[in-house]
C-alpha cells in the first residue's frame, strides 16, 4: 500500500474509461450495452489484477511449477499497491453496473463524475458509495447549517476517539503478540485476538465515522458503514452490520448476479461461498484473507444447513431465552476468523488458531497452583485495564444507541452537561490517545 503521485494516472484511467462507458452504455442497445459494460469491468478488474493480484498469482504459479521441478519464466512486477485502489475501483464499477441496469442515468459532466470516484473523505477507505446516493448530491446547493456542521464535527471526534484512543492502544498488544506468537501462552493469544476484534472495528469504523462526518460538514450524506456489529446474534446478521457498503456491494453485484438464493440449495451454498471467497480476496492478495473469507462462507453455509436442528436444540434447552449467548457465540466465531485476517502469513495464523486453545489445560493447572499466567505483552497493567474499560465503554455506548441515537440524547442534555461531555471526550483523546501509531488498517486494501 503506497501513495505514489504518478499512480494518480491509474485513477485517471479508470475515471476516463468508466465515464465514457457510462455514456456509451446508456446510448447503446442490446448486446452493445453488455459489450461496453464488460469493457469497463475489464478495465477496472484489470487494474486491480495487475496492481493487487499479479505478483500473488505469479508467486503461486511459481510454487506450482516448482512442485514439478520447473522454473517460472514470468517476471515479477516491481510495483506498489496504490492506496485505496480496491475502494475506488469498486465504487467506479458500481456506477457502470447501475447505468447498465438502468437504475442510474449516465453522468455527462466529467468533473462531477470524477468527483464521484475521487470524493476525498471516502476515496481511500470507503464507504463504497452507490451513484444513486452520491452523484445527485454534487449538483445540490448546500447552505451553511449549524446543526449539520456540528453534528459532522461530533461524528469526526467520535471517530478520532475510536481510532487513537481505542484502536491504536489495542494495536500495541496485538502487534506485540502477533509478531511473535510462539513467545506467548494461550491466554495472551486470546487477549490479543480479542483486542484485535475491537482494534479493527474501532480502526475501520473510526475512519468511516470521520469520513461520514467530514462529508456531513460539507453537506453530503454518505451511507452508514457499521451498525454495532458485535451485537449481532448470527454471522449472517454480522454481515448486515459490518462494512455495510462492501457487503451490500457484493450482495447487489455478485451474489444476486450468481442467482442469490433463487437456485437449488447446493448452488445457493456455492453462491454464498463464492461471495465470501471473493470478499476475502478483495481484502488482500494473501492466502490468509482467502482463508478468512472462506471461513465466513463456511459459517454461513453451516448455519443455514443446520438451522432447523439448531432451533430445535435451542428450544429444547431453552437457550433461545438467552439471546446474549448467540451474541457471544457470533463474536467468538468472528474473532476466531480475525486470526487469519490479522496474521502475517498462513503458518502464523494456524499456529495461533491451534495454540489459542491447546494451552488452556496448562493455564488452568498453573492458575490452580497459583502460578502467574500473565506475560508481558507490550503494555503496562494500567494500559491493559484501561483497554478493557474502553472496550466496555464502547459497547455501553452501542447499547445506549440501540434505543435512541447518542446525538439525540446529547441534544436533549442541558448545554453545561453537553459541553462537559465534549471536554471529557477531547481530554480523553489528549491524555490517552496513541499519536505515534499506525495509519488505518483498511488503507492497505
Amino acid at each position, binding site marked *: 500500500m503506497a501513495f505514489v503521485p504518478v499512480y494518480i494516472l491509474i485513477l485517471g484511467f479508470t475515471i476516463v474509461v468508466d465515464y465514457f462507458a457510462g455514456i456509451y452504455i446508456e446510448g447503446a442497445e442490446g448486446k452493445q450495452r453488455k459489450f461496453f459494460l464488460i469493457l469497463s469491468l475489464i478495465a477496472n478488474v484489470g487494474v486491480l489484477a495487475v496492481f493487487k493480484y499479479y505478483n500473488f498469482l505469479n508467486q503461486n504459479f511459481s510454487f506450482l511449477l516448482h512442485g514439478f521441478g520447473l522454473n517460472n519464466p514470468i517476471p515479477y512486477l516491481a510495483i506498489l499497491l496504490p492506496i485505496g485502489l480496491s475502494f475506488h475501483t469498486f465504487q467506479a464499477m458500481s456506477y457502470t453496473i447501475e447505468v447498465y441496469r438502468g437504475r442510474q442515468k449516465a453522468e455527462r459532466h466529467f468533473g462531477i463524475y470524477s468527483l464521484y470516484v475521487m470524493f476525498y473523505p471516502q476515496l481511500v477507505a470507503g464507504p463504497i458509495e452507490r451513484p444513486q446516493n452520491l452523484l445527485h448530491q454534487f449538483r445540490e446547493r448546500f447552505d*451553511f*447549517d*449549524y446543526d449539520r*456542521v*456540528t453534528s459532522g*464535527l461530533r461524528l469526526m471526534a467520535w471517530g478520532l476517539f475510536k481510532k487513537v484512543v481505542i484502536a491504536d492502544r489495542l494495536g500495541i498488544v496485538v502487534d506485540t503478540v502477533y509478531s*511473535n506468537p510462539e*513467545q506467548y501462552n494461550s491466554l495472551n493469544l486470546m487477549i490479543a485476538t480479542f483486542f484485535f476484534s475491537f482494534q479493527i472495528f474501532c480502526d475501520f469504523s473510526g475512519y468511516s465515522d470521520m469520513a461520514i462526518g467530514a462529508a456531513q460538514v460539507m453537506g453530503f450524506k454518505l451511507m452508514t458503514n457499521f451498525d454495532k456489529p458485535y451485537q449481532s446474534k448470527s454471522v449472517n446478521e454480522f454481515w448486515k452490520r459490518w462494512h455495510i457498503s462492501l457487503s451490500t456491494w457484493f450482495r447487489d453485484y455478485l451474489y444476486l448476479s450468481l442467482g442469490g438464493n433463487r437456485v437449488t440449495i447446493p448452488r445457493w451454498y456455492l453462491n454464498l461461498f463464492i461471495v465470501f471467497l471473493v470478499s476475502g480476496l478483495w481484502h488482500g492478495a494473501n492466502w490468509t484473507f482467502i482463508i478468512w473469507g472462506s471461513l465466513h462462507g463456511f459459517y454461513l453455509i453451516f448455519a443455514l444447513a443446520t438451522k432447523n436442528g439448531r432451533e430445535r436444540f435451542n428450544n429444547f434447552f431453552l437457550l433461545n431465552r438467552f439471546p446474549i449467548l448467540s451474541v457471544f457465540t457470533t463474536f467468538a466465531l468472528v474473532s476466531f476468523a480475525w486470526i487469519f485476517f490479522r496474521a502475517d502469513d498462513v503458518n502464523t495464523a494456524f499456529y495461533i488458531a491451534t495454540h489459542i486453545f491447546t494451552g488452556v489445560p496448562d493455564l488452568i493447572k498453573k492458575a490452580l497452583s497459583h502460578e502467574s499466567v500473565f506475560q508481558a505483552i507490550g503494555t503496562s497493567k494500567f494500559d491493559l485495564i484501561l483497554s478493557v474499560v474502553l472496550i466496555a465503554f464502547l459497547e455501553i455506548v452501542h447499547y445506549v444507541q440501540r434505543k435512541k441515537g447518542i446525538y439525540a440524547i446529547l441534544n436533549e442534555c442541558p448545554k453545561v452537561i453537553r*459541553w462537559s461531555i*465534549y*471536554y471529557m471526550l*477531547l*481530554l480523553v*483523546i*489528549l*491524555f490517552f*490517545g496513541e*499519536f*505515534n*501509531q*499506525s495509519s488505518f488498517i483498511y488503507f492497505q486494501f
Partner: protein
Amino acid sequence: MYKRLLINVSILLLPLVAVVLAVNIKVDSGFVINHRSKEIAEILVSGANAGVKYIPSTFGSLQTAIIEERIRIHDLKKKDIVVFGTSRSSEVNSEIFPQNTFFNCAVPGGNILDYIALYGLYNSNHMLPKYLVISIDPWTFHARRAVTINKKVQYISDPSSPLVADKDLESNYRFGMVSLGLKEEAQRKKNARTLSPDDLIQMLSPDYFQTNIQSIFDKMVIKTDRNNVDSYFIIRSDGGYSLMQQSQIDSFYVKENSFKFIDVNKSNFFISADTSSIYWSYFKKLLINLKSHEVTPIVYISPVNPIVYEHLSNSLRVDLEEGIDVFCKDNNILRIGSFNPNKYGYNYVGNYFMDAYHPVGPVVRNIFYSHRNELKDLGVIISNNLN
C-alpha cells in the same frame, strides 16, 4: 451562524491547545527548546554526575554542547587520556585507568568530522592529551540517513552522500581541518540549539504532551554521585554514559534489533564505497598529525553483537577492520578491540549487548584489560577490576 460555530469551536479547543502548549514548554522533557547544556555542564564541572529524565532527542548535539561548555568554563584541564568516540565507546570510563586523568568525548552518532572538530577544540585550547583513544564505528567514514522503519527512526548507510559535521563545533571543525592541512568542506548538521519549525510543532504535539505530563512533577536534570539512578539517564562527570542499565536489557529486543541492524547497515563495514575513501584519508592524516604533536593515538573498536557479526562474517568481509589493522601496523599504532565479539569470548548474546551494536560496560572494561600488557608498554595502567 459561521461566527457562532467559530466561537464555539474556539471555546472548546483553545483552552486545550493552551494547556498542551504550556505543559510542553514548561516541562520540555526532550530538551527541545530548553537545552539545559549549561545546567548539565555546571553539575559535571562540580565533579558530580548529571541525570536527565529522558535521553534527549538531540543528545548528540547536547553532548557536544556540554563538552564545549565545560571547556569554556575551563573545566577540562589537560587530561592524560581522552576518548574521541560515540555511544559505542561511551562505556569507556575513568575507572579503567586508575592512574591517569581521563575524559570521554563520546558524541552519539559521531563520525570522523566530529573527531576532527574535537581535535580542533582540544588543539586550539592547548589541551591535547598524552593518549587519545579514537573509537572506530561502522559509520565513522559513512554518511547516514535517518529513515523510519517499523515506525521507529533508524539510521541507514548512505555511502554516496558526504558526511555531515556537527554545527555546534563548527569553528573547531574549521580549525581542526586547517591544522590537519585539509580543505574539504563538509555539510553542517542543523544546530540543535536553534529553534526550527519542527521544534515549534513539537510544542503542540499531544504525544509530547503525554510524555511531559508524566514527568510534570519530576526534575528533568538531577545532580547525583551514583552511576545508576532509576528512570534517569546518567551523564558521568568523566564524560561517559550508559545508554541502558543492565537490568533493562531485553534479550528479545536485542535479537530483533540485531536483524534489523544487519539489513540496513551492511555497507557501513566498508571503506571502499564512494565517499568513505576521502574520510578514510582524513582519519590517517589525523592519526599521523597526533603523533607529530606527541599524542599517542590508540585505535579502539567496540565489538558488535554476535548475531550481527555472525551474519556479517557469513556474508561478507569486514574490510574496514582489515584496513585499520594494516594502517596501524604500518604506523606503529596500538589497535585494541574488534568488531568481532568472539575475539574476546563473547560468542553468544547473553546480557553483553544492549542491542545490535552497543556492548555493556563490563565488555568494554574486559577488552581494555585484555590489552593491559600492550597498554602498559605505552605507559597506561589498566585496572584489574572488571565489574
